[in-house]
């Protein structure tokens, strides 16, 4: 039972354009959501997070949107840069529970 789903295994965009990575979840008890970025042969690194009391959180070029009614969140990267090419994992947790549930990841390729 996959509680966090990233339905697009890969995404390719041109440098300077917007990248939109999507994530759906099924567990309505999740109240905190995170995005991690992973380069090959490295561990994932924290990128941005959002609490369920918000619908948007922005950090520089990265913005996460949360639609609780649709159980959907998305990560927007504007403008996309070649260095953004990596695997992006969506993760969720209940704030009362330290366990993160991860999606399978989306490989983003930003072409120069």
């Amino acid at each position, binding site marked *: 039972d996959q509680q966090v789903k*990233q339905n697009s295994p890969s995404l390719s965009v041109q440098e300077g354009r917007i990248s939109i990575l999507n994530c759906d979840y099924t567990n309505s008890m999740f109240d905190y959501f995170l995005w991690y970025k992973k380069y090959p042969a490295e*561990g994932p690194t924290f990128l941005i997070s959002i609490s369920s009391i918000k619908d948007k959180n922005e950090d520089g070029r990265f913005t996460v949107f949360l639609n609780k009614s649709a159980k959907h969140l998305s990560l927007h990267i504007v403008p996309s840069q070649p260095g953004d090419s990596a695997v992006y994992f969506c993760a969720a*947790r209940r704030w009362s529970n330290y366990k*993160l*549930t991860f999606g399978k*990841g989306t490989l983003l390729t930003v072409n120069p």
Partner: protein
Amino acid sequence: GAGVSQSPSNKVTEKGKDVELRCDPISGHTALYWYRQSLGQGLEFLIYFQGNSAPDKSGLPSDRFSAERTGGSVSTLTIQRTQQEDSAVYLCASSVDRDNEKLFFGSGTQLSVL
């Protein structure tokens, strides 16, 4: 050290052998996690340590898996009688405490069971 350190980075073993994977978390981080990523899958929670509390072992897939954390710092994940389905990247992460969402991951151990 500056980050989470894991060793070895790669481990090839024969089916039925035991393996030990080591994790050295960031100094001062009280929470330590083990995850694994099998090919084409997301990260799967294995075990969690918080300070001196009893660990949460609820993610360990079988009794062949065990982990310990000595002195609230270094952790060792042991897999006994390895099977081919144990092949995966084993990732260790630490955080300041259980309420901090920023997990700092090591580079992982790529385990291959032949």
